């Protein structure tokens, strides 16, 4: 999703971008079943691991 004002704002305020999660119907469906997203989706798991690593470093 390309919503420029958001990116401009966090850049201006120097808030680090930890990661980003795409807008997908598939994710909404997973969530609706009470499932945990990174468990059901490899792409997202990689993204969450990247975020955790950023925290750890």
């Amino acid at each position: 999703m390309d919503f420029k004002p958001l990116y401009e704002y966090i850049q201006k305020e120097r808030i680090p971008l930890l990661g980003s999660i795409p807008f997908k119907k598939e994710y909404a469906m997973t969530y609706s079943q009470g499932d945990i997203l990174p468990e059901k989706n490899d792409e997202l798991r990689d993204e969450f691991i990247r975020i955790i690593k950023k925290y750890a470093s």
Partner: protein
Amino acid sequence: MKRPFEIVFLSGKGGTGKTSITGAFASIAGNAVFADCDVDAADLHLILSPVIYHEELFSGGKKARIQPQKCSQCGNCIKLCRFGAIEKDKDLFIIDEYACEGCGLCLYACLSDAITIESNDSNRIYFSKTRFGEMVYGKIGIAEENSGKLVSKIRKYAKQTAAINKADFILVDGPPGIGCPVISSITGTNLVVAITEPTSSGWHDLQRLILMIRQFHTPIQVIINKYDLNPVMSTEIENNLKKMEIPVLGKIPYDEKIVHALIDGKAFPECPFLNEITNKLIIMWNNIKSKVYEPKSI
């Protein structure tokens, strides 16, 4: 004089589509006044782009203030404050406005009469015009309390505005949850439209909301938003609501295109690509209109 029919949109859970759906109904309601009572995160104005014609201060909670010229720096206030809201910065004692609860203990503890308790002025109520009708909304300052009080004030002004404009409806965008501001947005309304989604949390929070609304004996109708995300759960919710004798006003499918309407700040019916959803909303609105609820006396 005929009282306008007041409908409040609630959900329990946040993110089910309350504001988008309120905005959509606002665009097709005709002669109506709108009130954004989600004062902790007022968002309806993003869809309705109001032009403010009058602004009013709303005094919420109270905060302590220290007059530095009187302060003898005895440190009593710092020692006694349970909220850690007073800090010493070099030779100055300073109140942290976000931490101060306005309890007034420091006022009594101060040896040199340097502390006063004042009403804060960071809350606002706005009177505005939108392309669909007039709107009253409020914004509460950061870490302010009394959002329930602000909600009742906004509703009072919305009623006055509706009377002046001879409006038939007041549409209230309510806050999420089941706490003070939600209760304040329900009392005395004619109808609650509860927006839910087929998720465990959506259903869980809706049940809590229903329990709470029943204390007020306000009629409830439910819209299941994004119903096709989980058709099994949607059917389960419908069946359960049937047992509870709560009517389902309608179901709205999940549509990724909705996000474009949100980014553009448009109501669904203004977007030709959302025709299918708009048609469903029109049927729901006609359904609401066709039913006459007697205003509840409290």
